[in-house]
């Protein structure tokens, strides 16, 4: 599924549409409290847009933007945001994920603090879900061996030969 092709039409349309798909995914994450959506659904749409990029451009050309290393960083960042907000509420003498304690730092009343806390948690979930979707796609479609790993193995000098 990740191989080079010379299809100009699909590449042009994908290049035009992907930023708008990502903008719509951000809208879905932000409006989770009012309309259907939230963190997980927005993360899936973000991941789907990156999967479209990988499908139409191939792994060699898209590697500068979507590599395995960047996806690992993003997934860890998402979990860090989620757990970080929870522990921040713990440090402020509340329960774990007790968002009303955030009103001491942010100087707003408790209802606003709860709303902002949920928004931050949803953003973390969105990052993590996007990274995991792209990572699963890369693993399934290449069988575990990315095209760049074979070149790196050839460059390694053998350790010792008896």
């Amino acid at each position, binding site marked *: 599924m990740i191989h080079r092709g010379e299809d100009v039409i699909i590449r042009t349309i994908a290049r035009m549409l992907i930023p708008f798909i990502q903008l719509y995914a951000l809208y879905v994450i932000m409006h989770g409290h009012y*309309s259907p959506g939230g963190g997980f659904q927005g993360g899936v749409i973000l991941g789907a847009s990156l999967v*479209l990029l990988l499908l139409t451009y191939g792994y060699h050309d898209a590697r500068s933007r979507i590599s395995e290393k960047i996806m690992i960083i993003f997934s860890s960042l998402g979990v860090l945001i989620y757990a970080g907000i929870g522990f921040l509420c713990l440090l402020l003498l509340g329960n774990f994920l007790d968002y009303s304690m955030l009103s001491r730092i942010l100087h707003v009343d408790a209802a606003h603090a709860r709303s902002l806390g949920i928004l931050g948690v949803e953003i973390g979930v969105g990052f993590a879900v996007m990274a995991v979707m792209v990572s699963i796609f890369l693993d399934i479609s290449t069988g575990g061996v990315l095209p760049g790993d074979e070149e790196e193995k050839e460059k390694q000098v053998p350790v010792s030969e008896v």
Partner: protein
Amino acid sequence: MEKFFLAVALGICFLVLLVLYRVVFGPGVFNRVAAISAVGTKTLIILLIVGFLYRRVDMFVDISIVYALLNFIGCIAVAKYLEMEQ
């Protein structure tokens, strides 16, 4: 006006049942992929009309945008896979 929308939705549902014949009996996988894409397009309109019947259109519009996106990406993914098999 609501009865007119209900009649249109039932008509498109009947057309979906007709297209399912091509999904089941299409010789080969290509006919099935084209028919599934057509079913997805008709489902989009049915979703919006159901939203009108419940008087909550602004909820159903978001869902139908996402369904159009996923229909498009899925069709391209299957086409790439079938091309690579050669």
